[in-house]
C-alpha cells in the first residue's frame, strides 16, 4: 500500500510540474544554518562539533486550485558523521469546492498554541514550542470546511515502521471566541527496531481563547488501553504580555501537564526521555514556563524551563536571538539539566544506563533566502 502511495504521489507531482507553463514563476527559498554544538558531560568535559543544515523549498504557482510543494532538509548527522536528509514536504493539494485533498509527505500538526501537546496527531511533533521531524508524515488528508471557522479533517497516514494505516479525525469550531477542537487518533502496531509497540487509540479535546487580558488554553486526552482502564492526561496554560515604561515588552507563557509516565516519552521526545523507564504507572506533573523579553526591535532573550513536580528535576533553557540584517540572524541557546540520580530531567543516571549530558550550548548563524 505504502509503495503504491509513494509512486502515485511522485507521478502526480511530475505531471503537475510538466503542466506548469515555462513562463510561470517558480521560486526557491529556504534557510541555511551553521552552528557549533557544545556538549558538557557529567565530568565537566566539553565536546564540540559543528552542525550545518540547509532547508530548501520550491515555491510553485498554484494551478487550477492545485498546489504542489517540495521542501527538503539537508543536515550533517553527528551519529553517521555524514550528510543526511529529511523530505519535509512532497505533496499535491487540490482545493475542490467543499473538500481540500492533500496527498503525499506533508506536515500534520494539531497544535493549538501550547508548548507541549498531549493530543497531537503525532505525539512529540512539537516539544517545548519547537517543531520536530515527527510531524512530517506520508499521508492523505481530506479537509472539509463547514463555515469560516469550522472544519472536519480525516487523515490516513502511512508510518514508516508499520504496514498498517494510522487514522486521524479532527473537528474544529469556534464558540464564544474560543477555538475548540475534538480529535481521535488510531495508531497502528509499530515495529521499532525489533520492539513491537501495540496498536493504540486516543481521543483529545483542546480549547484556546481569552479571559480578560490573559490568553488561556487547555487540552484533555484519553489514551485507551486494551485490558485496562485508559489513561487520562490534561494540560492547562495561559499567556500574558507586559509593557515596560520604556516600551519594551515581556511575554510570559506558563502551563501544567498531568500525564502517566508511560505516555510521557513520546510527548517529550527522545531528548528528554532518558529517565522514564521506571515506575511507568506513576502520574507525572510537569510545569513549563517561558519568558521572552524584547531588548529592542532586533534582539530578544528568552528563558524556558520544564520541571517535574514529582522529583524536582528541571531543565533550564536560556536563549538569545539577534536579527543582524534582513536575512541573517544570530542564535544562542543553552540547555542545563538539574536533578538527582534517576530523576526525570537529572543528568545522573544509574550505572549501566545511557549517560545524559549535563548541559548543551549552541551558537549559530541562520541565513534566510
Amino acid at each position, binding site marked *: 500500500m505504502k509503495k503504491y502511495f509513494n509512486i502515485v504521489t511522485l507521478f502526480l507531482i511530475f505531471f503537475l510540474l510538466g503542466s506548469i507553463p515555462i513562463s510561470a514563476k517558480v521560486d526557491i*527559498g529556504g*534557510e541555511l544554518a551553521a552552528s557549533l554544538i557544545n556538549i558538557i558531560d557529567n565530568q565537566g568535559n566539553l565536546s564540540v562539533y559543528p552542525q550545518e543544515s540547509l532547508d530548501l523549498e520550491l*515555491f510553485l504557482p498554484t494551478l487550477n486550485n492545485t498546489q504542489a510543494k517540495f521542501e527538503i532538509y539537508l543536515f550533517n548527522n553527528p551519529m553517521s558523521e555524514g550528510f543526511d536528509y529529511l523530505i*519535509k514536504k512532497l505533496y499535491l493539494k487540490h482545493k475542490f469546492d467543499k473538500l*481540500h485533498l492533500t496527498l503525499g509527505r*506533508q*506536515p500534520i*500538526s*494539531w*497544535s*493549538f*498554541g501550547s508548548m507541549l501537546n498531549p493530543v497531537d496527531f503525532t505525539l512529540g511533533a*512539537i516539544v517545548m514550542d519547537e*517543531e520536530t521531524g515527527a*510531524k512530517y508524515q506520508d499521508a492523505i488528508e481530506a*479537509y472539509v*470546511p463547514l*463555515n*469560516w*471557522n469550522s*472544519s472536519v479533517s480525516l487523515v490516513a497516514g502511512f508510518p514508516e515502521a508499520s504496514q498498517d494505516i494510522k487514522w486521524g479525525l479532527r473537528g*474544529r469550531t*469556534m464558540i464564544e*471566541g474560543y*477555538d475548540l477542537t475534538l480529535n481521535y487518533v488510531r495508531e497502528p502496531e509499530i515495529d521499532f527496531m525489533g520492539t513491537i509497540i501495540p496498536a493504540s487509540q486516543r481521543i483529545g479535546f483542546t480549547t*484556546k*481563547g*481569552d479571559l480578560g*487580558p*490573559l*490568553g488561556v488554553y487547555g487540552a484533555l486526552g484519553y489514551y485507551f488501553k486494551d485490558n485496562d482502564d485508559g489513561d487520562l492526561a490534561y494540560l492547562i496554560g495561559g*499567556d*500574558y*504580555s507586559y*509593557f515596560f*515604561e*520604556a*516600551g*519594551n*515588552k515581556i511575554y510570559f507563557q506558563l502551563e501544567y501537564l498531568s500525564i502517566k509516565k508511560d505516555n510521557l516519552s513520546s510527548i517529550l521526545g527522545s531528548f528528554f526521555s532518558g529517565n522514564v523507564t521506571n515506575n511507568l504507572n506513576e502520574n507525572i506533573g510537569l510545569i513549563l514556563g517561558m519568558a521572552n523579553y*524584547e531588548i*529592542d*526591535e*532586533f534582539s530578544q532573550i528568552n528563558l524556558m524551563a520544564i520541571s517535574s513536580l514529582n522529583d524536582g528535576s528541571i531543565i533550564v533553557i536560556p536563549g538569545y536571538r539577534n*536579527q543582524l*540584517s*534582513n*536575512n541573517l540572524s544570530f542564535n544562542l541557546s543553552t540547555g542545563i539539566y538539574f536533578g538527582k540520580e534517576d530523576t526525570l530531567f537529572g543528568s545522573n543516571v544509574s550505572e549501566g544506563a545511557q549517560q545524559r549530558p549535563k548541559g548543551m550550548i549552541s551558537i549559530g548563524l541562520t541565513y*534566510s*533566502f
Partner: protein
Amino acid sequence: MMRKIKGFLLIGIIISILITNFVAITATELTAEEIINKRDDNEYITSIKAEAEMIIVSGGRNITKTMFILSDKRNALVEFTNPGDRGTKFLKREDDLWMFFPDAEEIIKISGHMLNQGMMGSDFSYQDIMESDKLTDLYDFKIIGEEEISDRLCYILEGIAREGVKVSYYRRVSWIDKERFISLKEELYAQSGKLLKETKVNEIQEIEGRWIPIDSIMENKLRKDTYTGFKIVQIDFNPEIPEGTFTLQNLR
C-alpha cells in the same frame, strides 16, 4: 466688445472671490465630526488589495519586510513575502486574530493581548495594520487648533475613545489637511496621558480620486532611535474579493 469682456472678467473675478470666501467660510465652519467624516470618507476604505513594505529602523540598523494585504470593512488578511517570513499569514476577523505558520502549515488563534503588540517586530501593532473601523465609530472628536505641516494648513483634532468601545489608544490628536482631508500627523496616547506613538506622512498621492498616504512612518515614543516606515507599493480600491477569502480554510 473689450469693455464687455472686461465687465465679464470683473464679474468672474468677483464671483471667484465670493466662491473662495464662501468655501473658506464653510470650511472654517466645519465641525470636528464633519472634518473627521471627510477624512474617513477619504481614507476609509470598503475594501483594498495592496502590496506594502515595512522598514523597521533601530539604532542605525534596518530590516525590510514585504507583504500583501487584503482588507474589507471588518476583516483583513496579511501575507508576508520576504525571505524569512515568506508564507506567514495573519487573519483578523473582528477582534480575533489567527496566524498561519508556513513551515508546520498550522493555524493558531493568537491571544487577544497580542493585538496591541508590534507586528513582526515593528512599531505598528496588528491592530494598527488591520484596523478597519471608522474613527467616528470609535472616538468623540473636537477641534483644538490649526497648524501648518509641510506647507499644508491643517486642523488639529482631538479624539477621545467612546465609552465602552475597545480601542488601542485612548486619545489621538490628528493634524488633518484642510483641503485634502488627509491626516498628515497623528499622536497616539494612553489613558494615563503618556504619548505612545507618533505617525508622520512623508508622501501622499492621489489615487482613484483619493489622497492616500503612500509613505509614512510610525515612531514608538517610548523607545529611542527607532521607527518603522510603511510604504504602499501598489494599491487597488474596491477590488473583487472572492467569497471565502477571510476564512481559516483560505489560510491553509
